[in-house]
């Protein structure tokens, strides 16, 4: 993976956001009928096509996880990395624990939480 300037990363993140929306619009399969019984409360999250989830290239793989509120987590791995889904779940837990529960964190601002960084480092090292 080549190292880019932070400006380049912002550009890529911006275009990725758009591409993610387009991938959701392109969905060719007929809409799946609502699996929940009619008695349950209608949810705005069901039946909406998900955007890009996994992108594969010859050198790497991007796993994209979008939370219900629209935050996207991108995990760059080797193409053969197994169990990326569970890793993503765990990282989401770390995020919920150390970022969202941090009283000094303002939402939608860059994350500067030492504990989250350390938790992530520890998690990746244990896996590696």
């Amino acid at each position: 993976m080549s190292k880019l300037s932070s400006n380049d990363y912002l550009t890529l993140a911006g275009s990725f956001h758009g591409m993610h929306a387009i991938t959701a619009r392109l969905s060719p399969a007929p809409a799946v009928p609502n699996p929940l019984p009619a008695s349950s409360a209608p949810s705005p999250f069901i039946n909406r096509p998900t955007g890009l989830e996994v992108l594969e290239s010859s050198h790497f793989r991007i796993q994209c996880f979008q939370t219900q509120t629209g935050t996207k987590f991108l995990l760059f791995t080797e193409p053969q990395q197994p169990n990326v889904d569970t890793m993503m779940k765990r990282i989401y837990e770390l995020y919920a624990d150390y970022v969202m529960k941090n009283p000094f964190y303002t939402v939608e601002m860059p994350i500067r939480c030492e504990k989250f960084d350390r938790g992530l480092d520890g998690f990746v090292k244990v896996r590696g």
Partner: protein
Amino acid sequence: MVLYSFYIFDRHTECIYARRWTPRPASSGTAARPQSGSSITSNGDAAPTRKALTHSDDEKLVFGLVFSLRNLVTKLGGDDDTFLSYRTGEYKLHYYETPTRMKFVMLTDTKAPNLRQYLHQIWATLYVEYVVKNPLAPTEHPMGIGVANELFEAGIEAFITKVLPV
């Protein structure tokens, strides 16, 4: 394996061949749903008011998308990196680009293995044989002239039923 659609784009960003196996529904599920109040749409979700995409819109979106994804991949992974495929919850898009920048795109269901080698075969054994070597076909194919000839169509049909993994 379920095939949804197949596209060929030339180096002038034009879709010269398209084939679909699913009709696009006239209206999506969200558009048909009655709106009980304006509060649902107030969160910036414009989907219910949007019109359904036409086929030519689809082609343009697919081209723009693979073009941007390819740029993203080369920027992140270096010049020798190539974009192979992506998957969403509903479908998977496979991509193959020839050295002459023709793009072959196939949309399948999510469980399909990587179809890059098959797209390469379509190019090598069908496109080159029946379109490039056809003395009556023009060199470039504006509006897809000369691509969708009988032999090529039949070849694609046979390739899909016989060669592609089930």
